[in-house]
């Protein structure tokens, strides 16, 4: 894989996020807010029960961060965050994830989400999709699966539920 420390990329139709080397940012709850000065901190401490239970619930991660790291010859590596929407991968410009390569079909594959798992499916492409070098028609994706479509490589990365 290429250098992960740079290159934010812009794309209109899908959420493209910057490859960050920093620790994952979390929603800022009361607990994480830094008091402005020592005085206010003392004040906070004197009224101990300030932290509300609802903050805890807001901080509970409800979804697992999932993305595809894409390496496509002649293009900058990029990261595409996956959400609820079905994404089409193909040679066409109109695809959610365009791969402008000769050996990629116009509409080649799709990645869909059922609320729990992501599945990649071949949509009648000529050259197929390969997961860890095996040609599949369809496959539920697991963390660190390497997908090959033509000469492009897509690494599926998903946060684990338990460590």
């Amino acid at each position: 894989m290429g250098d992960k420390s740079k290159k934010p990329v812009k794309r209109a139709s899908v959420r493209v996020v910057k490859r960050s080397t920093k620790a994952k940012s979390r929603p800022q709850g009361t607990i994480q807010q830094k008091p402005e000065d020592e005085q206010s901190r003392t004040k906070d401490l004197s009224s101990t029960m300030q932290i509300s239970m609802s903050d805890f619930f807001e901080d509970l991660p409800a979804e697992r961060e999932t993305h595809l790291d894409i390496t496509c010859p002649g293009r900058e590596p990029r990261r595409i965050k996956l959400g609820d929407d079905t994404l089409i991968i193909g040679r066409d410009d109109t695809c959610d994830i365009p791969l402008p390569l000769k050996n990629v079909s116009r509409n080649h594959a799709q990645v869909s989400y059922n609320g729990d798992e992501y599945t990649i499916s071949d949509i009648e492409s000529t050259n197929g999709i390969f997961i860890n070098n095996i040609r599949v028609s369809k496959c539920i994706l697991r963390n660190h699966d390497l997908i090959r479509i033509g000469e492009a490589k897509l690494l599926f990365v998903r946060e684990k539920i338990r460590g």
Partner: protein
Amino acid sequence: MISKPSARAYVTFWGTRGSIPTPGNSTEKYGGNTPCVHIQHEDTDIILDAGTGIRNLGLELMQQKRKMDLHLLLSHTHWDHIQGLPFFVPAYSKETNIYIYGSPQKESFLEGILQRQMDVNYFPVDMNALQAKLIIKEIEFEALTIDAATVQWQEQVCHPGGSVRYRIEINGKKIVYATDVELDKLFSPSADSSDDNKKLKDEYNDFIKDADLLIADAQYTQEEYIAKQNWGHSSIETVLKVAHKQGVKQLALFHHDPQRSDTMIDKLWKKHSPHYALHDRPMNTFWAREGMTLAI
């Protein structure tokens, strides 16, 4: 109905684990459900074994269709191959016909075995509650025909209690399901060289020859096998050699040991697969995983 020559068979793994289900973090990738493989070709549904993986297949089928004719081929009746049946939702629907095939050696036992699994001491729901029409068939003839598919079968003696292997031929493609068999007993260099053994070897070789996909028991590594002789399962190394020699095109290693974690399988894959994939006569080798569908 005349099937289009281009119609392909789709093979989906719903359970790939041997012996006992293994849920948990370390088996998430290859899966923890016990054997169940679905072959779909046009409107034909063939199911190989009814391990715990069949539960998820049932939910998927219920979403796809209301009326079903399902053909369930059982390798044998050890727990890990039948335990999912009471949880197979289509079996509770009047709209379902399930044709169940098993070894003729079990004959009338087959129904009894499946029934006893649902005895009140083991399971809360009686087999009579299954609203589907269950048609239990012992396979008597050499081959059976299921719509466009021809199914060949053979008894496997190298497994305690025996088991059956199946070869499904559709559109000129061959898919072989041969699990729960101790090939090392026949093929390892130290195996006995009696005429009986030679016959069994020839039968196996002929059966898998040039298969487009072989789904094969590969529970142990060679080192592990030493302590597991006569337990009825094969070593990975033996299966690889035998399958490659017979010109198998794709090999799905199957019936993973309950102790085999995802990390261990990934390591085994790295160790063995490249050699066969890059060979003059390539054989694509992979460890079968739940949720994977191949077009054959």
